[in-house]
């Protein structure tokens, strides 16, 4: 029974996506409540899955009972379980928000469709996290691509179509590059299952080193385009700025991270350290990540539209994650995984609080935030917490992830990387702090009424507050998840 749990999680999402159209004749509240209950079910079962896996080891599941050499196999290890719980939990919080927002800019009859797309995305994300098959991962990637593009273009506005067209083109180049890499690996090994591929690749890589290096290059570039790693980021700011706020949060804090998980699987489960060190992948990734961390922040400073600014900030934060991975050490991987979670929380909090501001005041420029904290104290407080987390102030989860990254770089004898981390943090100050200062300090204080909470739908406020509490909790008690993450990172067999 417990072996079926990951599959049941996925099937619940697929079934929900199929049932929502049947509910279209009823009032929309029924759909919302139904979806929420389903999400809660999956959150509970993911919790259960983590404790089961931490105790008994990874779950293997062969579809249709076929042997893993020819069939599709799911392997739920500790990392997959943690990321799975993070994805589902964060989506639940964003889901609560989207109930109040009525997903701004979307037409009334499209609401149902929005949630159908959301559940199909969740289905594919769980699939991509759990799967142990390179080609199967490609199929799930494509499902995510199509649904994400539709969720961007669901607002029937001019600019969304152009943004999602660019997204389709780049994503498709990315997936085809990945597929080309899979084909090259299949040519050498004859498998697509990750375990078998890595077993046979370890013994023959010196004979077919040209195949392996081309495959490695194609796959890293393909995933890099989809995960918006620095030189391939151009689609991200447009897409994130033009989507509805709740889907920008999902795009930025979840979907981009899923591809990073694929990258981790690819590097440490398929190719492993011998091959990676031989081709100097670590150096390349560190350079890419460092450039991304600096350039993303510099681009973000120049933006006027606040959602575009947050998009560019995502690019620099993805640099942190990639740098953690590029250390090729257990601690570095742990810091990357912690930053996946903490950046997910912080970016979701930022996008959602900005979403409330856009919902209430219809402003999008960052100069219009003057004195806003007097009118919307809770929203701007959460925005401040999350922004301070981005900068890396103690007591927020962003501080912990930067600290772990710094320790990992010292361990790795690459202490100079700390300079880049600190520099990028300082650049974050340049574009986050003016917003905080102008919203809290620049206004005539006589309009200030203490204890007056802004009038916005309660689901929106609840979800934003939950995210703020989450950021602080993981900042003050990082060991709640850090132990688990370290344990998961050690399973990859790095030093």
């Amino acid at each position, binding site marked *: 029974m417990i072996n079926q749990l990951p599959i049941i999680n996925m099937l619940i999402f697929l079934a929900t996506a199929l049932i929502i159209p049947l509910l279209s004749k009823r009032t929309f509240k029924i759909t919302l409540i139904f979806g929420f209950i389903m999400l809660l079910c999956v959150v509970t079962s993911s919790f259960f899955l983590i404790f089961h896996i931490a105790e008994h080891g990874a779950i293997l599941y062969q579809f249709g009972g076929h042997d893993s050499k020819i069939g599709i196999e799911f392997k739920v290890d500790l990392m997959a379980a943690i990321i799975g719980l993070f994805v589902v939990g964060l989506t639940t919080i964003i889901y609560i928000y989207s109930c109040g927002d009525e997903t701004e800019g979307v037409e009334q009859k499209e609401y149902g469709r929005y949630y159908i797309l959301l559940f199909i995305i969740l289905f594919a994300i769980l699939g991509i996290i759990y799967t142990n098959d390179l080609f199967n991962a490609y199929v799930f990637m*494509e499902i995510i691509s199509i649904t994400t593009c*539709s969720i961007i273009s669901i607002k029937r506005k*001019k600019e969304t179509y*152009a943004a999602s*067209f660019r997204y*389709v*083109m780049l994503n498709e180049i990315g997936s*085809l590059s990945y597929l*080309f890499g899979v*084909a090259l690996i299949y040519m050498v090994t004859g498998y697509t299952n990750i375990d078998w591929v890595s077993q046979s690749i370890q013994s023959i890589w010196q004979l077919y080193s040209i195949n392996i290096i081309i495959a490695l290059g194609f796959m890293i570039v393909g995933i890099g385009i989809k995960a918006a790693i620095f030189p391939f980021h151009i689609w991200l700011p447009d897409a994130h700025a033009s989507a509805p706020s709740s889907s920008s949060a999902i795009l930025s804090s979840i979907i981009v991270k899923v591809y990073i998980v694929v990258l981790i699987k690819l590097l440490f489960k398929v190719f492993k350290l011998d091959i990676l060190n031989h081709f100097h992948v670590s150096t390349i990734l560190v350079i890419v990540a460092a450039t991304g961390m600096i350039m993303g922040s510099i681009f973000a400073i120049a933006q006027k539209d606040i959602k575009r600014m947050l998009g560019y900030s995502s690019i620099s934060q993805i640099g942190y994650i990639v740098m953690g991975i590029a250390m090729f050490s257990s601690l570095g991987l742990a810091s990357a995984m912690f930053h996946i979670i903490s950046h997910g929380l912080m970016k979701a909090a930022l996008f959602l609080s900005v979403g409330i501001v856009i919902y209430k005041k219809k402003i999008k420029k960052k100069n219009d935030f003057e004195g806003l904290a007097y009118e919307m104290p809770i929203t701007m407080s959460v925005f401040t917490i999350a922004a301070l987390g981005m900068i890396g102030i103690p007591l927020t989860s962003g501080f912990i992830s930067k600290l772990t990254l710094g320790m990992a770089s010292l361990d790795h004898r690459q202490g100079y990387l700390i300079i880049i981390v600190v520099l990028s943090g300082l650049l974050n100050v340049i574009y986050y702090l003016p917003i905080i200062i102008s919203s809290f300090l620049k206004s005539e204080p006589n309009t200030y009424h203490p204890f007056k909470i802004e009038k916005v739908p309660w689901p929106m406020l609840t979800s934003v507050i939950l995210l703020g509490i989450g950021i602080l909790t993981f900042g003050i008690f990082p060991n709640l998840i850090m132990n688990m993450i370290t344990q998961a990172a050690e399973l990859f067999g790095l030093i």
Partner: protein
Amino acid sequence: MQIIQAFVDHINFIGAVALFLIGLHTVVTKKNLIKRIMGLNIMGTSIFLFLVAIGNVTGGVPPILQQDPNVNYINPIPSVLILTGIVVVVSMTVYSLSLTIKIYEMYGTINQDELTYLIREEEIHD
């Protein structure tokens, strides 16, 4: 002579890579949106050709069980993977073509340069 022999032996792989590059070139450099979608299709086709070429066994027959035990079968798994791949690429093509229709309705053009110009114009007006 050896070079020509190697070329002929690996003509499938070379063709696939050439098609991939042609497709990539089309996607990156062409301004017409429909031509870019065609470029994506060429890229997809090149990978399918590559996978078929991998699965081929010289002198093999299609993988249908036969009486003769000495028959060589070609590898069916790449062909099956391609079936999935074709479905995916078709759906992506359909989706991007429908987006192109919408873009044409909204902006009245499918040229990337004009599109960028129009979008920038609107941003300045905001």
